[in-house]
């Protein structure tokens, strides 16, 4: 080792520690900056109209984003209905049946690929696959795009959580004569419940804040959701459209929508964390 004076080494250490502390502070500062911006600008948009009225043309006061709030809920729920069961099934397969077979390995690999695929590519895929051939934008094509995003996340976390359940539990259930499905659904699930819930909530949180997959599928609408076959209003595309508009009232509503999404995502994260903590506490 090079012989350097203690003082030099110590000062390097202080410098590095300072940089480290500064980096952490920088990260927190950016977080705080963003949160404060979204909070202050978003709260400025909140009044009863925001949550109960439909949007008005630019320049007319009194509009709200009630339809977009409803639309995002609708899309997220629909996506969940499609993506969560399929993801659970795939995760169960990988964990319980597919341990080391080549097929399972490739499914695992491709699940990671799908998870890392940019969301706009998924939106384009659903556009060419569903929207163009059928001839219209629709809520269900938006939901399909979101479901495709949820699928690999749920599958991965399901597999991970189920794998964490000790083998003994599985084997004792099987030894007692329980069929596979009973073992999985009633015994293993019960043990991994909070972990599974975490995975599902995280997938929902991630998907509810997505914009790109909805740009070419669910589009947007200034009216109440009127059926799954029609474009549907949603918060994220609305933010995209309103943010780039030059109208102050629309920009304010874009911030309001941003705050709403941020709060829901944070709330979902918090709930999923609590679920995990509960798990750790239980013996």
């Amino acid at each position, binding site marked *: 080792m090079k012989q350097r004076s203690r003082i030099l*080494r110590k000062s*390097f*250490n202080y*410098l*590095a*520690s300072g940089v*480290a*502390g500064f*980096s*952490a502070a*920088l*990260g927190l500062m*950016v*977080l705080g*900056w*963003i949160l404060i*911006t979204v909070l202050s600008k978003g709260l400025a948009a909140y009044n009863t109209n925001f949550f109960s009225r439909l949007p008005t043309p630019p320049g007319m006061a009194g509009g709200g984003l009630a339809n977009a709030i409803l639309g995002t809920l609708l899309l997220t729920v629909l996506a969940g209905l499609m993506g969560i069961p399929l*993801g*659970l*099934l*795939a*995760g*169960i*397969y*990988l964990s319980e*049946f*597919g341990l080391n077979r080549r097929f399972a390995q490739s*499914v695992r*690999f*491709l699940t*990671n*690929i799908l998870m*890392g*695929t*940019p*969301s*706009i*590519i998924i939106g*384009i*895929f659903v556009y060419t*696959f569903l929207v163009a051939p059928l001839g219209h934008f629709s809520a269900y094509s938006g939901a399909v795009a979101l479901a*495709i995003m949820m699928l*690999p996340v749920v599958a991965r976390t399901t597999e991970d959580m189920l794998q964490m359940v000790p083998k003994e539990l599985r084997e004792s259930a*099987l030894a007692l004569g329980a*069929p*596979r499905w009973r073992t999985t659904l009633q015994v293993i699930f019960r043990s991994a419940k909070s972990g599974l819930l975490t995975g599902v909530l995280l997938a929902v949180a991630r998907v*509810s*804040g*997505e*914009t*790109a997959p909805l740009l*070419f599928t669910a589009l947007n609408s200034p009216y109440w959701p009127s059926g799954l076959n029609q474009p549907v209003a949603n918060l994220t595309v609305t*933010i*995209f459209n309103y*943010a780039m508009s030059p109208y102050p009232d629309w920009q304010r509503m874009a911030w309001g929508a*941003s705050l709403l*999404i*941020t709060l829901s995502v*944070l709330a979902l*994260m918090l709930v999923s964390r609590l679920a995990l903590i509960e798990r750790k506490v239980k013996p």
Partner: protein
Amino acid sequence: MKIFQEESTQNRSDAVFKLITLTGAVILLLIIVALFVQLIKSSGLSLKTFGWSFLWSNVWDPIRQQFGAASSIYGTLVSTAIAMMLAVPLSIFIAMFLVELAPPVFSRWIGTGIELLAAMPSIIYGMWGLFVFAPFMAKYIQPFLKNIFGNSVLFQGPPIGIGMLTAGIILTFMILPFITAVTRDVFAMVPAVVKESAYGLGATTWEVTRKVTVRYGIRGIIGGAFLGLGRAIGETMAVTFVIGNSHRIVASLFAPANSITATLANEFAEASEPLYLSALIELGLVLFVITFLIQAGAHIWLQRVRKSVGVQ
């Protein structure tokens, strides 16, 4: 068929159960395959018309129906490179702070705070970037950089706030939590024995970090970097708002640029000519292939890490 061979007592119900769950896995597989196939099919026209030159042609002219991906690819690569060059060192320092320097209680809260950055939807980053950060860049950071590096070709042009550099910095903040989480776990996994022997020899915290921890966990850190890289390359909303949407390749970081994702977000809904649409989808295919290669690379890398560390 192997599916129906089960070693438990209720053969049939087990086989059925296995089949049902297999369906889930197969659907997952089919979706990815369909995605790839559809992308290739829909970019067929553009593939035939432009061939390989699509990748390095800088012309993006919807009027004359000439398309080349170079400006979009360039923007994607440069903005991602900026993000990686800033985020990886930052995350090493933050991990060092969290694991070595901060008291544990502090460390947990700060760690959670950094993770919250990851939970923010990307459109929030876009909004904040356009309305708050870009003006900040224009007013303070860009003039400051111009003062110091005035003559460098990297900082030419007026400080308009939006552009390649701003997009790169916003990406940094977006991928920072991912890389930091992995790096912190890597740091924490270094066996205490190794670190303590270094401390015992009189090394300072920084020296331990640099020569022992990072070296020990370099593979894991690279895995985390891959994760961040994949995220940065595919990011749409944050980049679209602040990159300036200009189909040119310019050396200056202050200049507006374009990325594959921003081009797609802006132009996809309006490609009225089949060749235009096909060219855009081919652009999407290029992005898909790039992310695929990164994921595959990360996968292979992590396999080797696992083998060398002995984890099953």
